[in-house]
C-alpha cells in the first residue's frame, strides 16, 4: 500500500530552536507570552523600579549605599532628616529585646536554656537521628523542668528571678513552647474523647473544643487574666505569666485536638480492627498501635499549629506581658534613642525575627509533608 513505510535511520535529538529554549525563549514564554502578559510584565517592572530603590535606601546601611545607620552607630546620625532605618538602636537595645528585664549578670541562664533547647530540638526534627523516644521525653518532660529552675532560680545558689523580669524573645519562645508542649497531651485526649463512643465523654470534648475554637485568643487571655484568680481558692495568687500560659494552652489544645483527630481519621479502619483483634485493651491499642502512626502523620499539622501559636503569642502583650513585640513596642518610646525612624525600625526588626522563625518552620512542615506523602517509613 502507498502508506507502507519503514524508517531507515533514526533522527537524533536536536537542540530546540532558539525560539523554544534558552533565556530569550524563557522570557518569551514566561514574561511576554501574550500581549496582556507583556503589559503586566511592563507594569510590574515599572512598579519594581519605583519601589525597590527607596526600600533599599531605607534598610541598607550606609556602607552598602543605603541611608540606614548601621549597628553600632550613634543616635545623632539617626536623627538626621535623610536617615533611613536606625539599626544602631536595635543593636543597642538587643539584650532588652532578647531577655526583657532579666538581670544582665544572669544572662548565662537564658543562654543555657536556648543552647539546651537547640541541642534537644534539632535531633528531634531530623527523622534520621535515632533515640527518638528518649529525645522526645527529654525535650517534652525533662527540658521544661530544667528551664523553669534555671530561669526562676532559687535553687543551687542561683539567685531568684521573678517572672515579671522575664521578657523579650525569651518569653515569646517560652509561651509558645510551653503552650505546645502542654497542649499536645491535652489535645490527644480531647481528640480521643471526640472519637469515643461514650456519649457523655464525647459531648464534653466537643463542647470544650468548639468553645475555644469559636472565640478569639484575646478573649481567652482576658478571661485567664481576670477570671483565673477568681476561680482559685481565696488567697492564692496566680502568676501573670502562668495565667497567660493557661489561656494559651486551653486555646491551642482545642486546635491541636482537631489536628490529631485528622490523623486518627486518616488511619485505615484495618489498623483499629487489627489492634483489637490482637486482644489489646483500648488504651494499649491506642498507645502501641494507633497513636504512634497517627501522630507521625500529623507532624506537619502540629508544626503548623505551632507556627500559628508562635504568631499568636504576640497577643500576650495586651495583658501586659513583655514578649518580643511588647519589648519592641515599649522601647519605641525610649527618649534616648528617639528618632523619626525609631518605631518603624523596631517593627521591621520584630517582623524579621518572627518571619525567620515562622518561615523556617513552615518550610520544615512542607518538607515533612512531602516525606510522609512519598511513603518513607522511618
Amino acid at each position, binding site marked *: 500500500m502507498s502508506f507502507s513505510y519503514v524508517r531507515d535511520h533514526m533522527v537524533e535529538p536536536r537542540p530546540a530552536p532558539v525560539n523554544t529554549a534558552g533565556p530569550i525563549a524563557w522570557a518569551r514564554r514566561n514574561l511576554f507570552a*501574550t*500581549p496582556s502578559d507583556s503589559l503586566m510584565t511592563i507594569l510590574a517592572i515599572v512598579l519594581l523600579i519605583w519601589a525597590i530603590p527607596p526600600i533599599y535606601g531605607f534598610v541598607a546601611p550606609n556602607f552598602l549605599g543605603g541611608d540606614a545607620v548601621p549597628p553600632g552607630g550613634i543616635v545623632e546620625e539617626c536623627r538626621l532628616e535623610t536617615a533611613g532605618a536606625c539599626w544602631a538602636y536595635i543593636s543597642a537595645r538587643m539584650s532588652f529585646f532578647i531577655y526583657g528585664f532579666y538581670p544582665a549578670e544572669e544572662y548565662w541562664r537564658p543562654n543555657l536554656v536556648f543552647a539546651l533547647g537547640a541541642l534537644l530540638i534539632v535531633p528531634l526534627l531530623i527523622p534520621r537521628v535515632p533515640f527518638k523516644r528518649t529525645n522526645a521525653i527529654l525535650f517534652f518532660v525533662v527540658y521544661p523542668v530544667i528551664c523553669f529552675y534555671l530561669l526562676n532560680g532559687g535553687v543551687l545558689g542561683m539567685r531568684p528571678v521573678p517572672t515579671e523580669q522575664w521578657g523579650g524573645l525569651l518569653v515569646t519562645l517560652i509561651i509558645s513552647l510551653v503552650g505546645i508542649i502542654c497542649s499536645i497531651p491535652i489535645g490527644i485526649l480531647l481528640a480521643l474523647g471526640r472519637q469515643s463512643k461514650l456519649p457523655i465523654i464525647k459531648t464534653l470534648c466537643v463542647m470544650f473544643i468548639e468553645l475555644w475554637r469559636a472565640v*478569639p485568643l484575646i*478573649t481567652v487571655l482576658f*478571661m485567664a487574666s481576670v477570671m483565673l484568680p477568681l476561680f482559685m481558692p481565696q488567697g492564692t495568687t496566680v502568676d501573670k505569666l502562668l495565667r497567660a500560659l493557661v489561656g494559651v494552652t486551653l486555646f491551642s489544645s482545642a486546635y491541636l485536638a482537631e489536628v490529631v483527630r485528622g490523623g486518627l481519621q486518616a488511619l485505615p479502619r484495618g489498623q483499629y480492627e487489627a489492634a483489637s483483634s490482637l486482644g489489646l485493651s483500648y488504651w494499649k491499642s491506642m498507645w502501641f498501635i494507633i497513636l504512634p502512626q497517627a501522630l507521625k502523620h500529623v507532624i506537619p499539622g502540629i508544626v503548623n499549629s505551632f507556627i500559628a501559636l508562635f504568631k499568636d503569642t504576640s497577643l500576650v502583650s495586651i495583658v501586659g506581658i513583655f514578649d518580643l*513585640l511588647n519589648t519592641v513596642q515599649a522601647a519605641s518610646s525610649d527618649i534616648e534613642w528617639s528618632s523619626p525612624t525609631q*518605631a518603624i525600625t523596631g517593627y521591621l526588626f520584630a517582623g524579621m525575627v518572627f518571619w525567620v522563625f515562622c518561615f523556617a518552620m513552615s518550610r520544615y512542615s512542607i518538607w515533612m509533608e512531602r516525606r510522609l506523602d512519598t511513603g518513607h517509613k522511618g
Partner: protein
Amino acid sequence: MAVQDNLAAPPRTAFYNDPVIRGIIYQIVVAGLVVAFLAWIIFNTAQNLAAQNKSTGFGFLFETSGFGISFTLIPFDRSSYYWQAFVVGLLNTLLVAVIGIVFATMLGFVLGVARLSSNWLIARFATVYVEVIRNIPLLLQLFFWYFAVLKAMPAVRQSFELPLSIFVNQRGIIVPRPLPDAEIFWVVVAAAAALVGAIALVVWATRVRTRTGHYPVSVAQGSRFAGAIVAFLVGYLAISMLGSVVPAVSAVSFLPLIGALVLAGLSLTKYGFYGRVFIGTAIGWAVADFLLSGMFGWLPRGVIVLGAALIALGVAWTMLTSDRRPAATEGKFPLALPILIVVAIPALVYWLTGASLAFEIPVLERFNFAGGLQLVPEMVALVVGLTIYTAAFIAENVRSGIQAVSKGQTEAASSLGLREGDRLRLVVVPQAMRVIIPPLTSQYLNLTKNSSLGAAIGYPELVNVFMGTTLNQTGKAIEVIAITMLVYLTLSLTTSAFMNWYNARVALVER
C-alpha cells in the same frame, strides 16, 4: 469443660469487664470529676466575690455608662447605658469585619489567581506577598500600620491633600461627607431596583440563549443602542482625560462632544471594535500618565508622557491582538444593556425627582478640619491590616481550589471547542468554588475574630468597649466575659451550620 456451657448461655463476665458497664462507669467518673471541678470553681468564685463585696447579675447593663466612645454608628454618650455600649462595640466589630471581608476577598482572589499566573513575574510577586504576610503576626502588622504609618502622618496643619478633597493626617483620613436630601431615598431605591432588574435580565437572556440558541432579539438590539450610549459617555470621558496628556485636545472645547458622537456612531458599525481600542488607549494613556507622574515626579515631563504613551500602546496592542473572534453562532453576551440599566435608571430618577447629593468639603481651620467625614486612624489601620493579612490566606485557598480542578477538565473542555471564557465560567469556576467556599468561610470567621485585635490599637470594637472599658468600670468580669464569648460563639456556630449545609448541598455524588 466450660466449652459445653457456651452453647447454652454466654459466659458470665465479671460486671467490671463488661464493655458497656465499663463505659458507663467511665462516664460517671468523668462527669463526676467535671461537676466537682465546676463546683469547686463556683465555690471559690463565690467566696472571692463575697470577700471583695461584689455582686453578680446582669443589672449593670441598664446602668449609665459614664464614658464616651470615639467612634460610634449609633448615638452614644456618657449618659447611655452599658447595653448600648455593647451594641456600639458589636456594630463596630461587624463594620470592620464586613469592610475587611469585602476587600480581603477581592485582594485574595486576585493574588490567588496571580500565584498561578503563567507570567513568572506576577506569580513571583504573589508568592512573595503570601510568604511574607502570613509569617508575621497580625498584631505586629497592626502596630506597624497604626504607629509607624498612620501616626507618622503629618500633623493636621501639614495634611497631605489627595484628589477629591481627601486629606490624610495624624488624625486619620478626612473625606467629603455626603449630604443626601430626602429625594435621594428614591434614587437609592431606583438603583437597587435597577440592579435587581439588570441581574434578572442577564439571567433571562442566558436562559433564552440556552433554550433557543440565541439571545432574545429585543435584548440584542437594546444592547446595540445601549452600547452606542455607553460608547458616547465613555468616549466623552476618554477624550476629556486625554486633554491632560495632550494639551491640544483640551484647547478645542467641543472636541470631546464631537469625538464621542463619532465613537457612538462607530460602535453601531462593524468597526466598533476600533473605537473601543481608541477609548482604551486614551484612558490607558491618561491613567498611566497620572500614575507615572505620581511615582516618578522627578523625571522630566517629556519622559513621563513618553512612558505613558508606551504603556498606552501596550494597551492598544493587547486589545487589538486579543480574542475578538466572532462566536460560532451568536454575538457576545449583550452586556451593554444591563450596564446601562444600572447606571442610567438611578441617574434618570436623580434628575426627575430633583434630588441633590451635595458633599460637605472638609476645610482646614485653625486647629482642625471643619466638615467632612473623619475616618479614624484606628479603623483605617485595622481594616488595612485585616485585609492584607487575611488576603494572604484567602489567596492560598483560592490557589489550591483552582489547582484542585485537574488539567484534564480544562483539556476536555478545550477539546470540545469551548473558549477560554466559557471554559472558566462553565467548567473550572463551578468546580473550584466548591473547594474554595468552605475554607473561605472560615477565613471570614477568622477575620471577624481577629478584628478583636483592634482593641490593641484603640479601635472601639466589642472586646475593647465591653471586655475593656465596661469590665474595668463595673468589675463584672464573669458576666462581661460570658456575654462577649457568647457573641463569638454564636457567630462561629452560625458559620459552621452554613458550612455543613453548603457541603451537604454541593457534595459531588460518588458511587
